[in-house]
């Protein structure tokens, strides 16, 4: 990149990897029990887990993508980020405490609590694996693009090597450290990321006399949009369809966050429901700080760097934050920002790998294949093997998707989480009659409708920006399926319940209702 120093970038990044690997090695235990591997022995405090939650959640897409989107689309980029802050209220008031009280390691624990174990656990694991893989492939492909931007690696082969290195380091985190090590990686990364954006923000505000209005004014002079930059509609306002598409995206963001499997699994790393609640409070503070900072950084990049330079840089709008860093702090700050962005990808994919491996080992191997009679040691062994397999899949997928516009995979992951997971969690906690059949309909209805709608949407074919721009089999006009698939999944759950002769087990239902609110029977205090 212009003026960047590859040696510094690589150096800062190597230091991060070495330090985190050392920490992971220190805290990881060689003979981990299932509880250690999946949930870090539930030994983290609310504050620690809250910071780790924000670390798991803030991907490179949020850091580079949102600040860049604000620099290019102005108000509409900001609008995008708000959903991610607001969505934590859902996690706080409805999901966190009930999940902690009801389950032990995975989402399957909660969904299968009062249902027939095998089909429901298999379904929960399917959804978890699909969401994690989609999300991970998007992140890995992003790592390739980021490298092109930051390290001047432009050949496909070179980027493939980078993606493979990311994959190998992430699997090492998971194998060596389990949940405990991975959590510490998230904490270190989240603290670095927040420090980095806060310092940049304070610096920018200082430069403009602590007046947001002054930054905005300078920004509007550096973009062809002019004052329109600050008004809604630049990105999503073109047509009635694009507006509807944005509403669909907003719905998936606000409902999907707290149903993402790697976010859900974090709630098991704390000892009880009160700490789970505290962790969401911490995460909310971190998120709000972070996205307020990206607002300033995005407009600040525009004010100091200008939209032409940003759009001409390799990586386009993703380069806004790095360019700004170079402008205000030279090669060293650029190196730090790049390393933080890269650490962000690494930590997020590690969290996803752990979640996918836990879901396969705990739900599929222990409860579907071994019918709940698996030896805990072999369960952890299966989890580790799965982590390696998932890592290989993600490396292969990331290399294949490198260079494609796969941003829609992230939106798809949110829509999937909101459609397949949220409806089933809510029904099984609040609707007495909900039964196995309803659970399966809701999960597969949400999963299926999401995947089908996205396959026949402009994200895949028919538009200039799609993966297959030359063929057109798109009949679903929205790029985000949430507006249709979320209600559809609720409808499926309702119909599936009513159409089955099976009645819900009243004893199990009473147990779940009491346990989810009080923790009685869970052994938690």
């Amino acid at each position, binding site marked *: 990149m212009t003026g960047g120093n590859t040696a510094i970038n690589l150096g800062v990044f190597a230091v991060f990897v070495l330090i985190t690997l050392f920490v992971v090695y220190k805290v990881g235990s060689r003979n981990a029990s299932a509880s250690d591997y999946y949930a870090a022995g539930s030994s983290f405090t609310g504050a620690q887990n809250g910071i780790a939650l924000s670390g798991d959640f803030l991907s490179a897409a949020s850091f580079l993508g949102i600040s860049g989107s604000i620099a290019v689309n102005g108000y509409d980029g*900001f609008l995008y980020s708000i959903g991610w802050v607001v969505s934590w209220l859902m996690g706080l008031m409805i999901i966190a405490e009930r999940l902690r009280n009801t389950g032990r390691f995975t989402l399957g624990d909660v969904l299968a609590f009062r249902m027939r174990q095998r089909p429901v656990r298999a379904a929960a694991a399917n959804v978890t694996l699909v969401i994690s893989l989609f999300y991970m492939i998007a992140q890995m492909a992003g790592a390739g693009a980021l490298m092109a931007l930051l390290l001047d690696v432009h050949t496909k082969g070179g980027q493939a090597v980078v993606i493979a290195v990311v994959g190998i380091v992430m699997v090492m985190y998971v194998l060596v450290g389990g949940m405990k090590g991975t959590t510490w990686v998230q904490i270190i990364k989240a603290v670095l990321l927040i420090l980095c954006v806060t310092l940049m923000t304070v610096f920018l505000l200082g430069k403009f006399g602590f007046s947001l209005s002054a930054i905005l004014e300078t920004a509007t002079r550096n973009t062809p949009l002019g004052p329109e930059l600050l008004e809604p509609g630049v990105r999503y306002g073109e047509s009635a369809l694009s507006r509807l598409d944005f509403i669909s995206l907003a719905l998936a963001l606000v409902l999907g966050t707290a149903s993402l499997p790697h976010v859900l699994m974090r709630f098991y790393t704390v000892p009880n429901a009160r700490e789970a609640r505290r962790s969401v409070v911490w995460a909310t503070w971190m998120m709000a700080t972070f996205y307020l900072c990206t607002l300033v950084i995005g407009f600040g990049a525009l004010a100091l760097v200008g939209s032409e330079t940003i759009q001409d840089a390799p990586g386009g709008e993703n380069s806004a934050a790095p360019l700004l860093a170079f402008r205000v702090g030279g090669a060293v700050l650029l190196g730090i920002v790049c390393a933080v962005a890269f650490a962000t990808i690494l930590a997020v994919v590690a969290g996803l790998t752990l979640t996918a491996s836990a879901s396969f080992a705990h739900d599929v191997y222990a409860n579907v294949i071994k019918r709940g009679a698996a030896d805990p040691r072999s369960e952890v062994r299966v989890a580790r093997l799965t982590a390696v397999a998932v890592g290989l899949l993600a490396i292969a997928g990331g290399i294949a998707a490198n260079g494609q516009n796969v941003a829609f995979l992230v939106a798809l992951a949110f829509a999937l989480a909101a459609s397949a997971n949220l409806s089933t969690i809510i029904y099984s906690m609040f609707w007495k009659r909900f039964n196995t059949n309803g659970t399966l309909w809701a999960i597969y209805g949400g999963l299926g409708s999401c995947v089908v709608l996205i396959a026949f949407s402009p994200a895949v074919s028919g538009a200039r920006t799609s993966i297959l721009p030359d063929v057109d089999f798109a009949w679903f006009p929205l790029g985000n399926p949430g507006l249709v698939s979320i209600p559809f999944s609720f409808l499926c759950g309702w119909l599936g319940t009513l159409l089955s002769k099976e009645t819900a087990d009243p004893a199990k239902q009473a147990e779940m209702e009491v346990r989810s609110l009080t923790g009685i029977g869970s052994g938690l205090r």
Partner: protein
Amino acid sequence: MAKAILPPTDPGRARGFATFEEPGPPLLVDEAGRPDYAAIRDSADFRELRRRTAVFVLPATLGFLAWYLGYVALSAYLPEFMGAKVYGMINVGMVFGLLQFVTTIGLTLLYSRYARRRLDPQVAAVRALTAEERA
């Protein structure tokens, strides 16, 4: 937390000592000491816990969803209104956007205070119906 206020109940040690404690209500557990969930669910304490939770969570959730989706819809369908200047370069949309941050933090703090004062003590009361804390 509830653990701290319970009297010592180790039966082996308490036997033979006179205490002035009122005998507690019968525990809602079956012969094997497992909690009787149906009985707990129908107890007045649990119903009160459920009521207190619903009274806060239901309106708060519907409220924040309406406020957020309303804000998104306003941005999508009434861009002129959202673009109106309020102060300097800052317009209505920006103010509403920042207000989303304020209401999110505010509601988070409000809920955690409500939970600490009104829910946690009630959870402790329900948990006292079983042998859970004494195991």
